[in-house]
């Protein structure tokens, strides 16, 4: 090292001059080849032009002096959230929903633009609340505008698929032990003809009644006995057991049952068997609790001025919308795509509704499609092989701001899952979030027709970027 005293701004640049350079090269191949011929250690960036029309906005957003720190704060809150399942309570009570108000998945939408499964679920919810005698009457009421529709996300809530929440439904209540927030999600109904996929027949309404009369109170009493369940720890374990926490929740559901079973038996001895049988008969039972866990973390990351972090990705069956930390409650939308996947029975792509549901909160928080590499057991179901799953997760590191410290993927050397989508990185790379999802039938009342992968519309991200650039 130098025996000379260093000048005022000399230190870091002197480090550059003091050793052998190690270079990141991005751009013209001949310049990179010249480095290779000199045997200079180098890594090349596989650069592509940004999404069309975003160059100017990118320049402004990247230049924003608040951005780096704002994103650090926002994603720091997202990944430091410590969600705990603390209760199960009726929506009327916890969300203050009055009769005649219905929440739904995705960005706000009215009856006129609502898709088949969204309409079906709303009809079912009207019937469940006893506001109409039959489906036709329910549809007339919904079309009349005499009921209130609003986005779950506007009420600290998320809902799977159609995501319809009515006052009498019971909700998981998840509290963030780190930042103090609370979030809610309805209870999972199981598979087949279910409200969230747009079915509204008598068996659907009957099941919702049972959930309100038996399941909800039993879970509430059990939780009161057992105390809060640490969902962060449970999700971390489930990832290592082969779940990605969106399309596969088998391990997480099993862990939750194991955690709650003794308390359910103690709290509701007469109904414990039917409650446990119901939970155990549905591999996705955990999904809704996991969604509330994602929501409470994403909400903690909201409203950091200058941050380009995505705090919500959600679909209502017509639009795919995102919200961004630095842009308040504004939605940026594009048309929801039809998922590419496998279909149940005789159903095919022609029966599929465009993408629907708030379950993309799992991808928003670094799970689901982002954690595909952790779930080799489902990769065939959502298309492709294990290598594709690994590639999908790796691609997500390109558009995210952090790696989750608790959610790790054994197959990637326990690397944290990619978490915190940055609209600027989406625009720069053109890489869109990978979303795992179920597929709802296009026609109201059909239910689930399949499951697969879907890409969000790029324009939602470019619109948000342009809004950030406008400051």
């Amino acid at each position, binding site marked *: 090292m130098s025996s000379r005293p260093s000048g005022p701004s000399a230190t870091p640049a002197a480090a550059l001059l003091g050793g052998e350079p190690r270079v990141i090269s991005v751009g013209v191949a001949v310049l990179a080849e010249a480095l290779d011929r000199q045997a200079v250690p180098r890594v090349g960036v596989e650069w592509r032009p940004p*999404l069309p029309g975003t*160059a100017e906005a990118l320049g402004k957003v990247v230049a924003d002096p608040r951005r*780096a720190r704002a994103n650090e704060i926002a994603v720091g809150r997202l990944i430091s959230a410590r969600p705990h399942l603390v209760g199960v309570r009726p929506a009327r009570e916890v969300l203050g929903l009055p009769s005649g108000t219905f929440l739904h998945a995705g960005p706000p939408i009215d009856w006129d633009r609502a898709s088949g499964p969204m309409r079906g679920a709303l009809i079912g919810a009207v019937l469940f609340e006893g506001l109409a005698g039959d489906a036709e009457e329910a549809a007339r009421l919904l079309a009349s505008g005499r009921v209130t529709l609003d986005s779950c996300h506007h009420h600290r809530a998320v809902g799977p698929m159609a995501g319809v929440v009515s006052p009498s439904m019971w909700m998981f209540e998840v509290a963030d032990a780190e930042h103090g927030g609370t979030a809610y999600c309805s209870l999972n109904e199981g598979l087949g003809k279910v409200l969230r996929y747009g079915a509204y027949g008598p068996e659907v309404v009957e099941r919702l009644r049972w959930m309100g009369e038996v399941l909800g109170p039993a879970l509430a009493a059990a939780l009161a006995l057992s105390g809060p369940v640490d969902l962060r720890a449970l999700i971390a374990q489930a990832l290592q057991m082969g779940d990605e926490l969106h399309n596969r929740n088998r391990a997480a559901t099993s862990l939750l049952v194991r955690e709650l079973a003794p308390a359910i038996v103690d709290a509701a001895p007469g109904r414990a068997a039917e409650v446990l049988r119901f939970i155990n008969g549905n591999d996705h039972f955990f999904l809704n609790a996991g969604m509330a866990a994602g929501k409470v973390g994403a909400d903690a990351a909201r409203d950091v001025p200058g941050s380009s972090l995505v705090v919500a990705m959600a679909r209502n069956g017509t639009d795919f919308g995102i919200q961004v930390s630095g842009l308040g409650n504004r939605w940026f939308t594009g048309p929801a795509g039809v998922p590419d996947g496998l279909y149940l029975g005789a159903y095919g792509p022609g029966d599929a509704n465009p993408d629907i549901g708030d379950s993309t909160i799992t991808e928003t928080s670094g799970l689901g499609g982002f954690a595909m590499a952790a779930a080799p057991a489902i990769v065939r179901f959502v298309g492709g092989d294990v290598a594709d799953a690994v590639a999908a997760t790796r691609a997500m*590191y390109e558009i995210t701001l952090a790696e989750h410290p608790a959610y790790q993927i054994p197959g990637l050397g326990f690397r944290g899952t990619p978490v915190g989508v940055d609209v600027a990185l989406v625009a720069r790379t053109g890489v869109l979030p990978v979303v795992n999802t179920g597929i709802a039938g296009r026609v109201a009342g059909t239910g689930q027709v399949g499951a697969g992968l879907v890409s969000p519309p790029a324009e939602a991200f470019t619109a948000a970027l342009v809004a950030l650039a406008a400051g």
Partner: protein
Amino acid sequence: MTTGTDLVEVRAGVYHDSVSLMRVSQALTARPGVDVAVVAMATELNVGLAREAGFAVPAAGPADLLVAIRAGSAADLDEAAEELERQFAALTGGGGGGFETAGAAPRTTGTAARGFDATLALVSVPGEHAFAEAMDAVEAGLSVMIFSDNVPVAQEVLLKERARERGVLVMGPDCGTAIVGGAGLGFANVVRPGRIGVVAASGTGAQQVACLLDLAGAGVSHVLGVGGRDLSAAVRGRSTLAALAALDADPSTDLIVLISKPPAPEIAQKVRRFVAGLRTPVVFALLGPGADDLTTATEKALRALGVPVPRWPSWTAAQATAPDEPQAGPDGEAGPDGRAGPGRGLWGIYSGGTLCEEARIVAGAGVFTDYGDDAYTRGRAHPMIDPSLRLEALASAEGVVLMDVVLGHAADPDPAAWLVPAVRAARERGVDVVVALVGTDSDPQGLRRQADALVEAGASVFVSNAAAARHAAALAGSAG
């Protein structure tokens, strides 16, 4: 789609840089039976060029790859299409090793910085996109060389301001040359290690000085480019001061040469004040009328370190027209510089901006064009890589042509190969060709090998651009 003997195709989402694609286009065009080949990103400019050439180009955007080939026969077209695929196959693969997620190259400089323990980023993406990549590097605590030109000056100021806060160095934008720790970045010559550091707001100026220092046996410690605008009133010498400070603190640097085109006067003052506070002596090579040329400044630096100044090599060809027989342009009309006889026209056909400026000042008269200027490089490769514009100029020149040929990494692998026939043709028209050959014997192209070929073809070759300009001016019968 193929119609007759045209192949027109848009490949969505496929990207290659303009230099690589230009090489593919050249390889296809060079095939017998191929009339035109446009392989380029589908920018407005390139789509326009293809349509002008009569191709039916469908709608495409700048993120798509455009292929348009016209051949003499369907068989020729098929073969060209096969060659195209071979060329593309050669382009993909090999993005550098060492990244921990092997098999998936990083897509941004930021991701690369996360997975690779780098000290420096080299950014050469199109100028409108360079800012984000450079900012990634600065935010990751890395110095960055921005080779890209056409970067808005406000972005340059912002990057340099952020770099100051982070204590890293931003070289560029529009920084063609740097040598850091022995590694040549961008257009850089293979120069022996030595005790002289160079700070340059000028790429070819830095190459000229570094090569002369090498020829004198002195060599360089580091060459730090700062970008052509660094000493402007807008950028205020931010990187120049940072680079001077870094070299001042560098134990292997005993003297610094500072090279620039004339800076803004208040910035020149600021730099001189800063230099007065340094422990390391600084020799100024600020081009301008009455100021030292690069060769003279180099000689001063050598003398300051007690290194003998050699005779700078030159190889003078037998003249087609003796310099003491001045003649007018064709038919006795005005020469290309607008002057009528008795002097002959002097055409400066340069790839380096600083060399061009220096030659213009030294020669005193003539028409000088810097084909490396932004105006000529928008949408095409730098003339050190793509000689076509300069070849066109040489083919139509009269009188005396003065041009630079710059060797080194990333420059044309064998400029004499395309220059020799052009020089011969010019000589046959009675044109004198004077070449400022900037390079070293260790350069991949070899200084002597290139000089021999050019002299053999009838050019006069000088390793000093100033000497070349004086010679050309004398041949043209102008001041000099």
